[in-house]
């Protein structure tokens, strides 16, 4: 009986495990292997090259720049989209007039593929005829070369990312808010607690599990969302807005250097696994999934 039971469990897991192995575990391992090879060039086959790709990476200024850019990008987009998502959820959840309309407005970016709206954002950002600079001019300010100035290029990408993500995360917070216990709030109001105090003492702690879930998603997106780069900046000017995954794509599919791309991928994988350990450690401590 127990044998059969075990067999049954494995059989049910098998399809998922096969797919996961083929498209997650095996490629992860072969990425590590390929990062140790020299690229095939001019008819020469790939050969084992030890850590030479890694040495090349350490000397590669562009790699260091994409790495720092990516960390800034995560630091800039993750907290702001979460804060905005909470604010949106609170507004939409309150008794405000027209909240259905508002909810719809917040949610639209989720429905619009990043790559399609990137061209519209290009119009917002373009310096001479674009919307943002027109507004700045109306306000009597100098225009900004949003995508062409290394100071602004990455920030401009961040802004679009926050726009894209906040509405999606809002939905999760909204779901959480709707399930909160009414009575607790009534009690707090009877005690005469202020709105802010209620939010900080009751709502925020109760939203913690959602926040962790959203946090994981937001962090991941900060490392895997590069769609808008294809339209807006292509990582420029001078790599000011280049991100790791886009640089990996460039190396693999523009420069035909798949071994170096593999080396960069190993770095990205390490970052994500490290983050996973930290985040799941947090979850273990804060949230008790049964």
């Amino acid at each position, binding site marked *: 009986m127990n044998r059969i039971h075990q067999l049954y469990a494995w059989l049910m897991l098998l399809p998922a495990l096969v797919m996961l192995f083929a498209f997650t575990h095996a*490629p*992860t391992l072969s990425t590590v292997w390929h990062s140790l090879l020299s690229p095939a060039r001019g008819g020469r086959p790939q050969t084992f090259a030890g850590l030479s790709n890694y040495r090349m990476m350490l000397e590669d200024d562009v790699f260091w720049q994409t790495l720092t850019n990516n960390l800034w990008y995560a630091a800039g987009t993750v907290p702001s989209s979460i804060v905005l998502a909470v604010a949106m959820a609170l507004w939409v959840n309150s008794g405000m007039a027209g909240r259905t309309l508002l909810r719809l407005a917040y949610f639209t970016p989720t429905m619009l593929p*990043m790559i399609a709206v990137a061209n519209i954002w290009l119009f*917002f950002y373009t310096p001479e005829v674009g919307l943002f600079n027109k507004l700045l001019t109306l306000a009597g300010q100098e225009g900004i070369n949003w995508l062409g100035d290394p100071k602004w290029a990455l920030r401009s990408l961040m802004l679009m990312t926050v726009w894209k993500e906040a509405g999606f995360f809002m939905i999760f917070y909204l779901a959480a808010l709707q399930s909160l216990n009414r009575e607790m709030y009534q009690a707090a109001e009877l005690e005469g607690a202020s709105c802010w105090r209620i939010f900080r003492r009751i709502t925020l702690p109760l939203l913690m599990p959602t926040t962790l879930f959203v946090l994981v998603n937001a962090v991941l997106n900060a490392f*895997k969302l590069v769609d808008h780069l294809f339209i807006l900046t292509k990582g420029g000017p001078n790599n000011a807005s280049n991100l790791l995954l886009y640089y990996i794509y460039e190396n693999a599919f523009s420069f035909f250097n798949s071994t170096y791309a593999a080396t960069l991928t190993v770095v990205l994988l390490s970052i994500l696994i490290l983050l996973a350990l930290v985040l799941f450690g947090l979850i273990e401590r804060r949230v008790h999934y049964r």
Partner: protein
Amino acid sequence: MQTLSRLLSTSAAWLLGLLWILPLLYAVWAAIHPGEYATRFDLLAPLTFDNFTTAWKHAPFMRFMLNTVIITGLILAFQLVLCTLAGYALARMPFRGASVVFGLILLQLMVMPEILIVENYRTLAGLGLIDTHIGVGLPYMASAFGIFLLRQTFRTVPQDLEDAARLEGCTRLGVLWKVFVPLARPTYLAYGLVSVSHHWNNFLWPLVVTNTERSRPLTVGMAIFGAPESGVDWPVICAGTLIAVGPLLAVFLIFQRQFVQSFMHTGLK
């Protein structure tokens, strides 16, 4: 004081809302006006439908749309089946090594297929599946997120229900189908929403793995259609964007109440 802060809060909410639909508003503006008004705003600008006809002629939107629907549907169908089976096994069938297997699965939460485009591309080329719908879908069909969600949901199903069904002579799969799946409906809905919105929007992997209109989804089609290299022609691009997102937006507008509500009743919190 109270009213003032309420007023402030309300106007902030609406300002943000306006900002959030601005791109859509602009797309509509640019699409229905002649080219010279694309960057100039004049209430009396003449209306035109030409941009839509031009865009429609430029790119096979129907084909792209069909590809997207097929790919998204294919992925979702496989995900639901694979994740249900795996989630059930992990939740209700204690076996040796379960925690190791669970850990291995959770790895995919972090190591997403997007990161492994180079290797997965190699695999698909080896299988001869480049430029096919199934090829676009394969790396996503087992989803750690889905398995995780369903495992959590299935764990909350009372043992009595399962036992009762077993007593009535249901097989394991029968129990899964008759008891667990109906109870987990909200989870399925929420997961479906997340999955569909992800794959509807997905770009990088389809870009890498599709070559022709045979399998190109909307996102890749739009990227090629609106490639800035060819000189940005906003009115036509906006018209194309509206054609492309129109159907999904319409579906959402019609069903948004049910959509959001079902989402709120899920275990996702």
